């Protein structure tokens, strides 16, 4: 049993919140069996506390990081990375029927994470950031993309280093080159790409071409069965090929 929101209800609530009207409670209770709401409430409460703390320190964070990803604010994405770990750890044991229900991610985004999403994606961000505006859920939906960001890092790396991978900032790399494409289905490949990006082995101007070459390799290679060393050397060959061609 869990809270859910339809796309239409989510759009109405966002409009209310943005024009300063009192939000109507359009949540619907769905599912049967164990009540997931108390667990989810606890995670959301920790999320908000942690967000408030990180937000207060974002300025200092920004001074430490040299921006290279033009598409997004690096300090904000770094905060998203940290909160992704919290969200994944808190929700990973929730019933799969809840976690694969688009309405659940909409509920989280609009009811529990509204302030965070407006801060992260901008106060004029589109409805897809809240999982609304389309019938399905896109990878712009902040709550879902954060959970999956944490899951990919957790599956690919050891207990010591997965949080560091989840926190690698790169709005465009995460969204365009991992989450929205099939690279996200291979956590090892996604992490190799992120780590090479983070170590600056891939230059900003090269990332799109590397991602495109990986997409094309998919038609021949099953990345899911390749180990870290095999994936690393495949990635290095793509980077070399781009430099040879340019």
């Amino acid at each position, binding site marked *: 049993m869990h809270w859910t929101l339809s796309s239409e209800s989510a759009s109405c609530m966002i409009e209310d919140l943005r024009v300063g009207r009192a939000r109507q409670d359009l949540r619907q209770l769905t599912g049967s069996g164990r009540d997931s709401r108390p667990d989810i409430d606890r995670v959301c409460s920790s999320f908000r506390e942690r967000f408030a703390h990180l937000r207060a320190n974002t300025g200092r964070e920004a001074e430490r990081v040299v921006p290279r990803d033009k598409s997004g604010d690096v300090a904000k994405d770094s905060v998203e990375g940290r909160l992704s770990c919290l969200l994944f750890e808190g929700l990973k044991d929730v019933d*799969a029927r809840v976690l694969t229900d688009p309405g659940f991610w909409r509920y989280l985004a609009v009811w529990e994470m509204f302030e965070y999403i407006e801060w992260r994606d901008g106060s004029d961000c589109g409805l897809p950031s809240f999982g609304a505006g389309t019938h399905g859920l896109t990878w712009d939906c902040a709550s879902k993309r954060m*959970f999956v960001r944490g899951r990919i890092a957790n599956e690919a790396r050891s207990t010591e280093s997965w949080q560091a991978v989840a926190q690698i900032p790169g709005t465009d790399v995460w969204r365009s080159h991992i989450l929205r494409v099939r690279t996200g289905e291979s956590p090892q490949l996604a992490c190799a790409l992120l780590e090479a990006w983070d170590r600056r082995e891939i230059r900003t101007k090269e990332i799109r071409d590397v991602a495109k070459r990986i997409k094309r390799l998919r038609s021949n290679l099953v990345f899911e*069965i390749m180990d870290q060393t095999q994936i690393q050397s495949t990635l290095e060959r793509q980077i070399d090929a781009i430099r040879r061609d340019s």
Partner: protein
Amino acid sequence: MRTVQIERRTVRPFAGIGDLDVCLRSMSLKVNNEPQPDAAVVRDSFELQEDTFALRLQIDADAVSNALEKMRIPAGDVGLVIVATGKCLKATEVVFRAPVMETELPDEVALSRTAHPLIFGDSSGFTVRAYVVLERDLQVRPLTPYLAGTWLAAREFSVSVRRDVLSGLRPQRLTDEVRRGLKLPAGTKTYLHIVGDSILESTGLAETVAFYIDASLFDRLYANQSSAVAEAFQIDFVIEILMGILSEVARDSDALGLGGSEDSVAGSHHEIVALTREVAERLDLTPSELFQTLRKDYPRVKAGLQAALNSSKLAQRAIGTMDK
């Protein structure tokens, strides 16, 4: 004069690899212990939560052995791998892996919701891919696969939730709020929003495409749904949506350098395949011809759709009602 038709296709440059394709043909998906004739299974959402799934492993061992021998690939370096992916969260796991020739393969592999909840418990469905794959790097030889991870034969199975191909494309109201979010000018009548970078990489059209109609116009059409004017508008909207989606598929294929191979590129995207086939059939074209025409002569495809959907007649009827 003889006309020569040229069609570009993605060809895997490995000699003799076609012989391996047959070896997975007898494999099938079992739903509630019943083998399914089709590789793509559609279930109602309430069924999906209760169904049990398994993959029947019927491999033609002789076909594998002969093909590998012809390609001079040691059978011990080749594995049978089954990879499954949940459609909602992209959770992916290797659910089975064994040498293709050297072990007694089980008759079937259970696709267990308990063992892999985020995949087989996914309320949007899942995809299962079976591969005969190189497990180790081989010595480099011309026209022979050598990289570990290269698949030699593949088959894909899909379980989805029942929905009409176009059901996810129900128009939405373009309110001022949405319009500002999409950075569209005031006065916009319709907008087809393609969300994300790649329509071919998406799991469903509903997740990738949103069609907006100006909120006031939407409300008027909704209030007069069965009027001749509303019907004429609706057909034009359908044409706009279809043209937008097909153009995006062509653009996406071109960006990947795979233009001309849309059939195989979109092979794993069942909704796009279904949509493309439907449009191509209506225009009496093959899917490849449809995309060739779209690139060469976009207005011709639009004209074909107008004719197939009686757009002109509906518009005339709408004007007729205004004359009365």
